């Protein structure tokens, strides 16, 4: 499709553009109890075309941009019509001028090995169900997606890069009826490689947790007096506060006052955050090469991330946008698990608002530890604010490792 689009752009005399062409293939399995309820395959392709237009407005040099999605089903005439209308609309986006990312014009080829998606999906299903051997808890349902995305990015400034990204994603629900309480927990997973062993272990852990949820008692109404311990993927969602506030698109409009060299919490009495941002793909959607970077070291901001426009407005080099986090803090589990505490193992839907710092939610399973006793509890909510929480947090030695987050498996937030 890229060649067809370039020809249309040339005929329309459009000289600033970026073409992001993506082919998405998948093998998908949907299970109910222990049986596959539906099998799916997918092979689709589309292009996100960004058109840029340079113009002057009230003495200010502007670069307007508009995105258009183009599909292989479209004929050239339809594409041309959409492109014409969008190019006109770029004049209404009177945003400050910036230079597009530059490239050498030489295209690198696909580096990854290609696997059979059908085989990958079935292998992961087998690994998941290997853990389904407990009499008191079982897999209720599961969804497994073996994915391959083939991406080609070109722009009018010499960027021409390609890559293939394979991954396995999904979710499963575990259920238990211990003590007559019919309960469930939902777990999600994502791996860059089909990590069968990690998925089996995750399912075993979930099966133990859902049994604990079945015997859990109602939590006390007011938990604000207990230190809070967050676990596993929630630690990553909690630390996303920093990645979002370090994004140039937050800083440029004044939603965040982060800058390189700033101490994110000068009066921290506990651990000071040390966080890396991790590249999930080799290139950003604009074709900027992505790499791992130190975001925050010992509480001090080292890097800001963001797309080309906002990075340019802040006068920094664009390294692309990042969602994946590696936290380098390591403390001791003894400190994290010092009585008393409330450890939330499973939230219904953990929410972190990076704008106002509020975080929390209703939990389905937590462990209340006091007076030498650990009690599984359920059915309450916790609510805190990051601007206070970061003043006194302690990270565990025990680690957690998935695609979206790796680092300490627990963080303790003092009252």
């Amino acid at each position: 499709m890229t060649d067809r689009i370039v020809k249309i752009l040339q005929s329309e005399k459009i000289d600033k553009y970026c073409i992001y062409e993506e082919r998405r293939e998948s093998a998908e399995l949907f299970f109910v109890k222990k049986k596959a309820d539906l099998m799916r395959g997918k092979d689709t392709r589309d292009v996100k075309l960004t058109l840029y237009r340079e113009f002057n407005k009230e003495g200010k040099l502007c670069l307007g941009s508009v995105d258009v999605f183009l599909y292989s089903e479209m004929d050239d005439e339809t594409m041309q019509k959409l492109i014409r209308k969008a190019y006109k609309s770029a004049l209404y986006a009177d945003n400050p001028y910036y230079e597009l990312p530059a490239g050498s014009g030489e295209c690198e080829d696909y580096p990854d090995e290609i696997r059979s998606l059908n085989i990958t999906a079935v292998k992961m299903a087998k690994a998941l169900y290997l853990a389904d051997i407990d009499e008191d808890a079982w897999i209720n349902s599961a969804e497994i997606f073996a994915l391959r995305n083939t991406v080609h990015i070109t722009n009018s400034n010499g960027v021409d890069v390609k890559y293939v990204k394979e991954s396995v994603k999904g979710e499963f629900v575990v259920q238990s009826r211990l003590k007559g309480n019919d309960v469930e927990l939902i777990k999600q997973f994502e791996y860059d490689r089909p990590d069968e062993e990690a998925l089996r272990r995750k399912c075993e852990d979930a099966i133990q947790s859902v049994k604990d949820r079945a015997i859990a008692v109602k939590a006390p109404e007011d938990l604000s007096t207990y230190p809070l311990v967050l676990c596993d993927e929630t630690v990553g969602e909690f630390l996303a506060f920093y990645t979002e506030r370090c994004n140039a698109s937050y800083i440029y409009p004044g939603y965040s006052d982060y800058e390189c060299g700033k101490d994110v919490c000068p009066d921290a009495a506990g651990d000071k955050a040390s966080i890396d941002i991790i590249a999930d793909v080799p290139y950003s959607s604009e074709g900027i090469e992505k790499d791992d970077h130190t975001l925050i070291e010992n509480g001090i901001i080292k890097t800001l991330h963001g797309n080309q426009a906002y990075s340019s407005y802040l006068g920094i080099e664009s390294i692309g946008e990042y969602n994946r986090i590696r936290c380098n803090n390591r403390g001791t589990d003894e400190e994290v698990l010092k009585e008393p505490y409330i450890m939330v193992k499973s939230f219904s839907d953990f929410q972190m608002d990076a704008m106002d710092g509020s975080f929390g939610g209703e939990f389905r399973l937590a462990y209340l530890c006091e007076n030498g006793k650990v009690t599984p509890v359920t059915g309450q909510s916790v609510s805190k604010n990051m601007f206070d929480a970061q003043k006194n947090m302690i990270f565990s030695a025990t680690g957690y490792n998935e695609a979206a987050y790796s680092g300490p498996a627990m963080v303790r937030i003092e009252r």
Partner: protein
Amino acid sequence: MKEKLIKKLMEKLWERYEYASILASDVRGKRYSVSKRGVACAMSGLLSGCGYVIKVHNGHAFAEYSFGELTENNIEEIITEVDRVYEMEELLDKEGIEVVSYDVPKEEPIRSFSENEMHGNPDECDDSVIVDKLRAVREHALAMDERVLDCQAGAQYQIYTKYFLSKSRELKEKVLWMTGNYFIMAKSGEAVRSYYKAYSNRDGISVLDKMEDGLADAVKGAIELLDTKTIKPGEYDCICTPEVTGMIAHEAFGHGVEMDMFYKDRALAVNYIGKQVASELVTMHDGAKSAIEVASYDFDDEGTPGQDTVIIDHGILKKGICDTQSAMALKVAPTGNGRRESYERKAYTRMTNTFFEGGKDSLDDMIASIKYGFLLENATCGMEDPKNWGIQCMVNMAREIVDGQFTGVIYSPIVLSGYVPDLLKSITMMSPVTELCGSGFCGKGYKEWVKVSDGGPYIKARIKLG
């Protein structure tokens, strides 16, 4: 739509499979936004897509294949790819994993073609019309109070044409919906607080004309959020604004009557059909035909006609909503709620327009009846728990009421929790008018986003807040 070519492909699939259907989608959607971040005017990946999904039955099990392009030359290739999906059945069998066996679907014959009236088709007007309206809304908001940090004014629309074909059904429709919204943002120290307001319709750009109506209140709300207290967890008398009522209807109860959850043994509601689950003041609907809003359509993504389903009738749980495949497993009739995020995704049971009917009480009487309690306002998010009917809903603010008067004290943020039937049974007053809004998208768990609307009247209930 390449209807001739689609029929040619399907003729071949009907020879090969016991059942085969296809959904062809041509979906175009745009997002606009004006804020300190700049002006954005773009087609959206989530709102746009153009392609096909085939569903087949081989006499034993279902399989699906999604693809993007259909030509005279690739018909045989598509059929080969459909066959290849069934490779997984063999691979699963080798691992000792079974596949669910279904009967071959039987459909009543239907032919239907429709197009909703598009008075203000945004696709036919210049983008400057929309961008200029958003600029004006933003400028007015900024001029109202110097403490406003920013106003993110936005709009979205989607126009879709869907064509469904099976041996017994041929259906086609064209639908437009449009929304407008703003986040009013105010800053206190490092924290930025925001107040959200949205509008929706099926008439196109006229929705933008309504945006000024609630602007002053939204600015006031954002400023009020700069000075809030933390609530003491407990159970209180509360009045919910229509959008908070809608969130309760949708998140707390609606997800629990999605019958694919009955099939998976993931919903408590299956044990309560015919039983009282709410105050007898409560009657709840869902359906593509229950209202004219963003989730109204003639047929769902599996070719089942849309309906108006009465879920709760005067407090009694009557029935759930269902997609076709789950309905086959449960041996019930589907309700026209089989929806896909796009042609690239599986169909699940999904809500459409979900709401409580209105009652007879005035809002003034409701407020006057509160000795100590709160008005809950500005719904932010919620999460379903169909298995245990636990509530997780968040609202931006709770306005304190003492002896029937607002004190001016505001608590924020607020988490609603508790047991859904306890909340619904505690409803003692409802205002007359049901208000619906389709500002957001609904996820199934953490993914599969589809456009929905929800709403209701003001309600008075006992609610656990934290």
